[in-house]
């Protein structure tokens, strides 16, 4: 999917969506809608990182509206606070987008392993798990390695897999039980 195919939700054309709402209840709703939009946009386009000054979402030319700098800050902070984003630097210029929470991701990975017959001794590399042919269409296809490791750590704790160190970090092997 290219970025041009992304289908924007209806409220993206609602002009007040780009003004942070003064009334608390409405603002909460608005921020939730922004959160949803950012996640969907990055997940569908397989984008791992949101670079604050580059993100095209802040601006909708078709209705001539954009979030101002303070508003962008508010939206991003909310995303991080909700656990769907993590700042990558102290200056807060870039944000890692958590497509799925680590627990959800762990479930997805294990389900994939069962379906592809890897459970019960199958081994694959970390690289194959996010960029291999077998993961086409999986929710974690193209995902950030760091996030994948967190999910695998959860599976290790549950005794569902073992991670072996490879020559490079991408070549780390995973054995599913």
């Amino acid at each position, binding site marked *: 999917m290219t970025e041009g195919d992304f289908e924007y939700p*209806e*409220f993206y*054309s*609602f*002009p*007040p*969506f*780009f*003004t942070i*709402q*003064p*009334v608390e*209840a*409405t603002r909460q*709703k*608005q921020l939730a809608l922004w959160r949803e939009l950012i996640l969907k946009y990055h997940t569908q386009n397989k984008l791992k990182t949101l670079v604050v000054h580059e993100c095209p979402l802040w601006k909708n030319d078709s209705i*001539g*509206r954009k979030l101002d700098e303070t508003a962008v800050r508010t939206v991003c902070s909310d995303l991080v606070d909700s656990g769907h984003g993590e700042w990558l630097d102290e200056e807060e210029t870039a944000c890692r987008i958590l497509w799925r929470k680590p627990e959800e991701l762990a479930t997805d990975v294990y389900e994939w392993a069962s379906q592809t017959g890897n459970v019960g001794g199958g081994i694959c590399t970390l690289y194959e798990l996010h960029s291999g042919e077998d993961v086409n269409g999986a929710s974690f296809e193209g995902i950030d390695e760091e996030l994948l490791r967190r999910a695998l750590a959860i599976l290790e704790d549950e005794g569902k897999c073992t991670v072996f160190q490879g020559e490079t970090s991408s070549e780390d092997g995973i054995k599913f039980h």
Partner: protein
Amino acid sequence: MAHRRRGVGVGRTRAGASRPGGSVPASGQRRTSSAAMPSSQMQIQMPQTQDDRLQKKADEMHALSMQSALDTVEKLQVKLADFAKKHQSDIQDDPAFRQQFLQMCAPLGVDPLVSQKGFWAKTLGVGIGDFYYELAVKVAEVCFSTRSKNGGIMALAEVCDTLNRNKARRSSSSSKRKSGKKDQLYSKGDIAVAVKKLATLGGGFRIVTVGTSDMIVSVPTELDQDHVEIMALAQDGEGCVAVENVTRQLRWNEDRVERALALLLQEGMVWKDDYHGISFYWFPSVWKEKMAIEAGAQ
């Protein structure tokens, strides 16, 4: 259904009385000449002693026509029941038919919607009342689920579209329907009846007419004429107003406009849009309806 006689003092002079056209009762035939005269002359010529008898006669005739009217109503009710029984499936499946049936019932004081038990429920099987109660629940669900976005105001047309879309989706997913009949859609009239049902439960459900649209309000917030007029003004435009254009077009002072907008904002019925130094106040409900109309026109 038993033909009970209602009305007063009609027991004696019943035979032949229900003939339409104000027939003269038997006891009056002796005075046919005077009865044919205009009533003003009659009073002058009548001796005092006949006054009482005349009054009595008038009462009798009045009671008779009353009785005949009641009989007619009763007959109509029976007819209506037969009709309902015969067209039961039309009433339940066809929104236009249902609407007309309800209109037919109203002047006779029959409300099939409230008859959960008894005669009407038996006549109509499931009961047309149930149909509207079910619809009312669906309407309430749609209104509640969008409340945080629109503050509890939603165009009736939008609610109707949403429900019909859901219905279409459901029936296409269960493709193996036993009857080949295609699913009938809800009409706007159906939705209006359902909202009236909800209104009786309290909680503020009501329909507010704004300009050319009916809006369903699903919150108890009191909306006065000022709020409705602002909404109508938004409807004339793109779905928004600014303080300046309200003061100009409605000739209100700023205070009044701001007071009205403050409530609408507080309730989430409008969202604020700061654009080039001017604040616009958008009604999600009005905006969405306009979008739907635009989309439909294309």
